[in-house]
């Protein structure tokens, strides 16, 4: 027999054997691509926790795989294609920069469903999901405004994109609400995860006299620097409990499990539809970590009251009157910001003197 025919028939037999076994109780294969390592202790770690929650919830009915440290850009397209070819029917792409790769791969695999975190492009088989981190920032800002003695708050931003700008504005508005003297210093690290640079950014802020640091980058380096200087900070994305009770006085935790479990369930029972989800404290997607004893009891109570009001939908962190940094009116008295304004936010609110890099 020719070698080629032998191989072909051998593989045909193998496939014939394999197919019935799979068809019996085929688990739903779910793929994840992460922008960082699972062990980053922040953003990617939380996505992986949610993946594990999905496994715990559905057991044998699902089978998950993940690819970590996938660079944003062309390589993401390769990783996504690889997951789709491996038979994954639902793929979570967990970073903003995976947006165009997801759209390209989704067009080639119409029967595979995609979930893209923090993006804004949808398709028949591409849904987007995001969390209202700015709701948590409002609580952080309240604590920051109450705790600062120098009346200077520092904020380490990653990239000047709407999600980060929302956080800066929200924390500033609420810090100033409880402390009209507060000033905000902003430093852009131009990275989501670069511990050495984040430490340098924190040092630069501390040298400016800042004594409370908020961060929108994923490592614990700013907390370590804050501790050295006797300043305080907050856990970001993950709880960062190793630094509690001081300097980490609270944290803003991304809790993706409820959303992941819901969406996987919808795929399993065939009710999955594309859409855009943007959930916050109320849905349990943004969680405020334990507020430690380093914070006075009345400040803690005030922060928790704000958290509960936001969670219950009684209060919107962007409620007028609010002006933009250039003095133009944004929201009138009592008006709340529409989501479209937030999703394209490219301005600071009045009172922040820093500039957004263009």
């Amino acid at each position: 027999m020719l070698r080629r025919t032998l191989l072909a028939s051998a593989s045909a037999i193998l496939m014939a054997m394999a197919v019935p076994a799979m068809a019996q109780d085929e688990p739903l294969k779910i793929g994840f691509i992460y922008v960082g390592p699972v062990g980053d202790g922040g953003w990617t770690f939380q996505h992986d926790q949610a993946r594990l929650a999905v496994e715990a919830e559905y057991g044998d009915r699902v089978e998950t795989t993940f690819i970590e440290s996938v660079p944003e850009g062309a390589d993401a397209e390769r990783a996504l294609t690889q997951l789709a070819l491996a038979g994954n029917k639902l793929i979570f792409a967990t970073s903003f920069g995976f947006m165009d790769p997801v759209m390209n791969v989704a067009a080639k695999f119409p029967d595979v469903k995609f979930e893209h975190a923090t993006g804004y492009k949808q398709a028949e088989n591409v849904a987007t999901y995001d969390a209202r981190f700015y709701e948590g920032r409002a609580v952080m800002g309240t604590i920051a405004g109450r705790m600062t003695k120098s009346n200077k708050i520092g904020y380490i931003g990653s990239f000047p994109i709407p999600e980060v700008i929302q956080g800066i504005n929200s924390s500033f508005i609420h810090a100033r609400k409880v402390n009209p003297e507060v000033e905000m210093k902003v430093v852009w690290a131009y990275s989501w995860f670069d511990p050495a640079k984040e430490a340098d950014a924190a040092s630069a802020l501390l040298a400016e006299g800042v004594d409370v640091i908020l961060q929108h980058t994923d490592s614990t380096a700013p907390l370590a620097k804050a501790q050295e200087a006797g300043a305080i900070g907050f856990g970001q994305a993950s709880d960062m409990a190793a630094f509690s009770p001081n300097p980490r006085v609270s944290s803003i935790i991304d809790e993706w499990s409820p959303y992941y479990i819901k969406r996987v369930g919808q795929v399993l029972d065939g009710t999955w539809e594309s859409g855009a989800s943007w959930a916050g404290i109320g849905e349990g997607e943004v969680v405020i970590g334990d507020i430690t004893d380093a914070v006075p009891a009345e400040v803690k109570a005030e922060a928790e009251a704000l958290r509960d009001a936001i969670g219950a939908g009684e209060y919107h962190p962007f409620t007028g009157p609010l002006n933009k940094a250039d003095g133009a009116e944004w929201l009138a008295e009592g008006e709340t910001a529409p989501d479209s304004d937030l999703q394209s936010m490219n301005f600071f609110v009045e009172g922040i003197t820093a500039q957004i890099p263009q």
Partner: protein
Amino acid sequence: MIDPLSIFLLLLSASTPILFAALGELVAERAGILNLGVEGMMIAGALAGFAAAYATGNPFLGFLVAALAGAAISLLYTVLTQLFLANQVASGLALTLFGLGLAAMFGKPFEGVKAPPMPIGPLGINWIVWLGLAMVPAIWWFMNRTRRGLILRAVGENHDAAHALGYDVRATRAAAIAFGGAMAGVGGAFISIATVLQWTEGMTAGAGWIALAIVVFSNWTAFGVLAGAWLFGGVTVLQLRLQAAGVNVPVQLLSMAPYLATIIVLVMISARQKYSRKAGGAAPGSLGNNFHALR
């Protein structure tokens, strides 16, 4: 206004990891070894040093272990390039990938825990920063004023001639690689033990590659490495500091500046090759070439 002294103090600690790694790589390159595994050796040192500091509660012991770990992982490179005469560039890249993966795997139990605080040294500056500064004249003295330094440079300039004179090219290179590994390990550990105080995967975030650029920038001299580390570290610190002070700076332009300076230095070196050789610099003649004794 921004106080220049505070910038300088920030610069000192920001440039320490790349200073250590680049000094180690300098010695290796002067022996004719182009080791692109700096990043891998740094991350190995970052993990091992952190683990030791965490387990014993003594940060200095952590740095010692980091040096040993960096030297140990560089043995792999030594075996590949000196024993099996594998291509140096490929082996170095492999070492980087291997180190990152290995550290990620063994680092799992150390996620989320915190290192003991570093005692503060003279003038409020970390002891390891002082050690890094002291290494600069020490390495200069070793390479330019000692017999062993001369042999090391001879091996790097022309390994056939050094061999003909009876010097052991492979042993010299193995020692230089191990030294480079130890220095990279300490540099990496500075990030995990002194800067971040925690272990996270991939925490060196490309510092090893900057160290390689600094060696080229330095024109293969110890004081050049110091200047390069201060330039790269200084630009980072300065742009962050300017931002914190509310000055609107073109971040991209500033971040680009050290690399631009490296290119300019390279052009100057090639334009004035003779001159820079006289000054004791320029790329070693046998850099990146493996040595195989035919006689």
